[in-house]
């Protein structure tokens, strides 16, 4: 397995249902052995991408290549991929081992071999004791693991997971996330995981592909997406970014200022040529994380501004303050996250505070 070679490539793939387009000219490469998450709100086309790759639906235009060979028209039952469906889609009239062994038995693998590999797969998903149960006798998390075992027993090149954790409660979902990740490491198979939950995506993926309205907005590591979103949508979709609109100033080495209602904010542009190339005066946003914002001593200078605490929300280990900043005509709501303290927060609602963030923790997003 070499993470640098492409397993599967989508080239200008489009999909329409009747006259309604759902995917526009998608290009995407999936690397061998990676855990790639396709993330997007509902209606973004993320599930359609999975269904096209799995062969559940035909393409409208473009092509899908596996190891460089076009498989766009290969029928679903010939593709070396297996899917874990959102509602598990376990066969209710078969036992757990019947379900798991199904993919082998339709390929006429010998009974003994099937029994051996089913036992192996059930061991892997820790369901050895449940081999003779029927799906209706299992809990949600157990069904989920049966679905996974059923998909991986055929040793597919790629396992497609369609929001498999959506139906589970929070605690079980966390467990399953770790479980999936560890299994993926163990069997070294490429996973394509579709979800609308950004926390889930950040926790599991090697790379994340963010989709919106049938387009891929950004593809990168969770770290890149979190700290260097390339557009307003990604910046807003990934958690509670503070976005302040303004106009770009002249480039200063690896930094660039932006004139905003909060004053002049200097942000880092290192390794991002498109930000360096943008013309002066272009509309953009300064983006900085709630946890990058600090209480400051002075109100003067770059990246410094004052605001009034409108609301305080205790969130366990941290406390989130909502701050009203800027002038009355260009009011701006910001979020500040500080560690919680046992004797209550140092902040009080209604208080006016000075805030700042370091230039290297600020990021620019073109509007």
């Amino acid at each position, binding site marked *: 397995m070499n993470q640098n070679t492409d397993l599967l490539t989508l080239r200008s793939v489009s999909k329409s249902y009747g006259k309604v387009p759902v995917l526009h000219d998608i290009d995407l490469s999936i690397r061998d052995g990676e855990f790639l998450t396709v993330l997007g709100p509902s209606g973004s086309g993320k599930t359609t991408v999975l269904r096209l790759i799995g062969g559940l639906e035909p393409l409208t235009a473009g092509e899908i290549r596996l190891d460089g060979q076009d498989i766009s028209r290969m029928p679903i039952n010939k593709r070396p991929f297996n*899917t874990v*469906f959102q509602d598990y889609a376990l*066969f209710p*009239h078969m036992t757990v081992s019947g379900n798991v062994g*199904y993919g082998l038995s339709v390929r006429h693998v010998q009974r003994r071999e099937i029994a051996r590999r089913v036992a192996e797969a059930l061991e892997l998903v820790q369901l050895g004791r449940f081999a003779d149960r029927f799906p*209706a006798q299992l809990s949600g998390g157990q069904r989920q693991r049966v679905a996974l075992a059923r998909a991986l027993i055929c040793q597919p090149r790629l396992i497609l997971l369609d929001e498999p954790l959506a139906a589970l409660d929070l605690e079980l979902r966390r467990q399953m996330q770790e479980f999936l990740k560890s299994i993926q490491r163990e069997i070294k198979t490429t996973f394509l995981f579709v979800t609308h939950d950004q926390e889930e995506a950040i926790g599991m993926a090697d790379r994340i592909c963010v989709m919106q309205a049938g387009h891929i907005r950004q593809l990168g590591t969770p770290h890149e997406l979190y700290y260097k979103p390339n557009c307003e949508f990604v910046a807003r979709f990934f958690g509670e970014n503070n976005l302040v609109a303004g106009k770009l100033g002249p480039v200063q080495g690896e930094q660039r200022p932006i004139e905003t209602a909060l004053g002049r904010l200097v942000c880092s542009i290192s390794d991002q040529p498109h930000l360096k190339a943008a013309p002066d005066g272009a509309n953009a946003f300064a983006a900085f994380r709630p946890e990058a914002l600090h209480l400051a001593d002075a109100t003067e200078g770059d990246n410094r501004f004052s605001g009034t605490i409108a609301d305080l929300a205790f969130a366990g280990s941290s406390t989130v303050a909502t701050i009203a900043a800027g002038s009355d005509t260009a009011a701006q709501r910001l979020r500040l996250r500080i560690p919680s303290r046992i004797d209550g927060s140092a902040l009080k609602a209604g208080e006016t505070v000075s805030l700042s963030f370091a230039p290297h923790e600020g990021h620019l997003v073109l509007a």
Partner: protein
Amino acid sequence: MSKAGSMQPRERRLSLLVTVLAFALPVIFVLVPLVIFLVYSFFSVDQGTIVYAPTLGNYVRFFTDPIFLPVFWNTVVLCVSVAVICILLAYPAAYFLTTLRGRWRYALLMLLLVPLLMSYVIKIYAIRSILGLNGFLNKALVAIGILQQPSTLFVFNMNAILLTLSLLLIPFAILPIFLSLERIPQTLLRASDDLGASGLQTFLRITLPLSLPGVASAASFVFVLAIGDFLTPQMVGGISGFTFGRILYSQFGTAYNWPFGAALSVALAIVVICAILIGERFGRSRGTSV
């Protein structure tokens, strides 16, 4: 239950009345007549009047007389055949319906069920004229050269009863099979494809087993309706097409031997109840929830 306690007296009387009716109606109109039949089957007839002294004579006659058991057996075989024919014809039709999309599916289903709204007797007359010597079936078979001349094979015998009952009862087979096929989640079929199964494998290993409950209820439906029918054998069976239903009918209608008729009815009822139980047993699918 605690809610019932807080009800006003009037409301409580009303709910009591509803409960009593819910139990009383089936008891009065179903259970009591059945019990009366059972009781009558132990009486006898002398010179046209019923003797109200308990006797097993009717049952002894049923089991020893060389007429009744063979007819009974032949009738059961006939009705099983009708059920089999109906299933074999209805399954492809129901399967085809489920492959249709949206409006067409239900329009066609309604069309297949329309014959249920027509008069039973008129349908039998119509089928009889189709099967007759100068009927459509004979003319068609002669026209395409299968027969040299019209055949009397199709009317006024057992074949006629078999064909007519099958034709009449097919809608009762289509409906449960269609419903069970329609209830199979599409994702199960997609999952089967996804795991590498061919279309035939998916049908044989997923669709067919999951639709068996519908097949079982269809079969028991058709069997029960066929075995209780005396009108069809009467009208298309002629002399050779003698079924148990006709014997029953003659005991009540012409021989006026109600106790013996009741005993025969009890025998029939036992078979019917068995058929319903078997249908119910296989009609329940294992772990239907996904």
